[in-house]
């Protein structure tokens, strides 16, 4: 609640937090983050989960000829977990960019560069949110009676969809002012999130990410990190593990099929209406955003 108390004094900080959350969902990567003083058991457990998830299900390329397979497995990994689907065109461009990096024709993407590109993409996307984007998101958050529960403590109560949409539209206009401080605040937050992931992955999945800080990231690695930030997906656990977690969750909660259906969840753990971490990463991953993020519009070559 400290953020609420801080709003009148520091509106920009609060709004920046909100906007970063809105487009990138950056506040939630709690469970998998490697604490500074993580016990060796925690580290081992997280490492096992990462190896069974990202480490096993995405076949990273170490040679140019493996680029297509790497991109296909990454696309499949993201789709299964969140419902975000890559177009054939994007897969083709991403594979070319991956090949070019592995061939030495293009440089690796530095963590700082990824942070900057993500910040630019977020700022641009915020300014172009359409009414439909806002309506779709509001719809996804609505209960059966059309009301939207704040999920906050009791004093926030319930809001109507109409009231919520009006306020969100006003918020969009505010973000279009292009405030430099806003961009700076967003960059700082995104930087923290990206660095957390790179640090965790390079420590616990060194066979894939050991050189992330020194050498940089391939386009596929960069996209996976951006996806992780946007969808709050820790990239852990295999499909069968995730399915088993869902099965166990239902049993623990003694949930009937009717109760499950009434929740209108997607069946996927992440992404829109995800049962583990619902989020709206599709707001960020438009064609333009992804092209900007990975600089794919010019054939995959970083300047």
């Amino acid at each position, binding site marked *: 609640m400290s953020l609420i108390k801080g709003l009148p004094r520091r509106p920009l900080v609060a709004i920046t937090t909100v906007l970063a959350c809105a487009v990138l969902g950056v506040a939630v990567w709690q469970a998998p983050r490697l604490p500074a003083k993580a016990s060796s058991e925690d580290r081992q457990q997280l490492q096992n989960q990462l190896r069974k998830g990202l480490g096993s299900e995405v076949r990273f390329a170490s040679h140019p000829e493996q680029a297509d397979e790497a991109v296909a497995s990454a696309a499949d990994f993201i789709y299964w977990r969140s419902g975000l689907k890559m*177009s054939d065109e994007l897969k083709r461009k991403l594979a070319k960019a991956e090949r070019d990096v592995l061939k030495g024709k293009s440089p690796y993407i530095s963590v700082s560069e990824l942070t900057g590109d993500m910040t630019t993409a977020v700022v641009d996307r915020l300014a172009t949110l359409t009414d439909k984007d806002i309506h779709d998101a509001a719809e996804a958050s609505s209960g059966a009676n059309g009301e939207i529960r704040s999920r906050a403590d009791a004093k926030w109560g319930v809001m109507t969809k109409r009231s919520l949409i009006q306020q969100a539209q*006003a918020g969009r206009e505010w973000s279009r002012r292009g405030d430099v401080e806003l961009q700076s605040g967003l960059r700082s937050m995104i930087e923290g999130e990206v660095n957390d992931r790179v640090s965790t992955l390079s420590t616990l999945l060194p066979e894939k990410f050991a050189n992330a800080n020194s050498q940089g990231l391939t386009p596929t690695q960069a996209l996976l990190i951006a996806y992780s930030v946007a969808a709050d997906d820790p990239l852990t656990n295999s499909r069968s593990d995730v399915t088993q977690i869902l099965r166990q969750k239902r049993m623990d909660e003694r949930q009937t099929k009717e109760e499950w259906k009434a929740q209108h969840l*997607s069946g996927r753990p992440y992404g829109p209406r995800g049962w583990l971490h619902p989020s709206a990463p599709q707001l960020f991953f438009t064609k333009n955003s992804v092209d900007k993020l990975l600089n794919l519009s010019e054939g995959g070559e970083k300047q």
Partner: protein
Amino acid sequence: MKKILAGLSFSLLLIFSGCNPFAEQYCNLTGQPNVSYLIIYPCVNGICGPIPDTATGTVGPDGRFRVPQRGFSCSGLQSLARFGSNMGLSLSASPASVYLPAPPTSGTITGQSFNATYAMPRVDYFDSNGFLVGSVVATSVSSDGTSLQANMPDLSYVYSGTYRVKVTNSTYDGYYLNIVGSATLTGWGRDEPDSDGDGWPDSQDCAPYDSFMQTGCLETCGGFGDEPLTLCGPI
């Protein structure tokens, strides 16, 4: 202006769910892995009602579980938490195979540690996806606690498949926290319909009468490359 900014923050947070610093706060607590926990909140956010709110569930395999804070400190909730036990026994159901169109009216579960001291044990039936399909309490428990009798739940709407039967003992004050174990039971004789013959049972097929469409029943624009974002998964 300040009021507007606060309002905007709140509205945006609500619209783009999944990242909400104003959302209900949770505490990560610890306990023995895989046992049931129970927290009875005497008050919620300072308001004390006649019927106390509760949080129940099972501690994760890593010994952690998450509960709503509801105005309490996490250390306070940790001290309020009650834990059950989980013997994790492998039990046997008899009959182990049930003809669903004409199921028996009752069955026997054998094992050990069934306890009727405070209340009859509860018997829950789960399908292969983890959904609860029925729950009954035992009608009798043998004096040595090695077997119990229970009526079959309503199986008139379930389909052929493997079911898990879980037995839980009650605490002195009526909470089912002490898991004894589980048995498997096979149901047969009523296959789930697949109206369009595409291999997906109607309940898992988003278009049960269209054999060319198995997933993707609910789509919104978005996703990489502006392709449709499929929200209907196969899980």
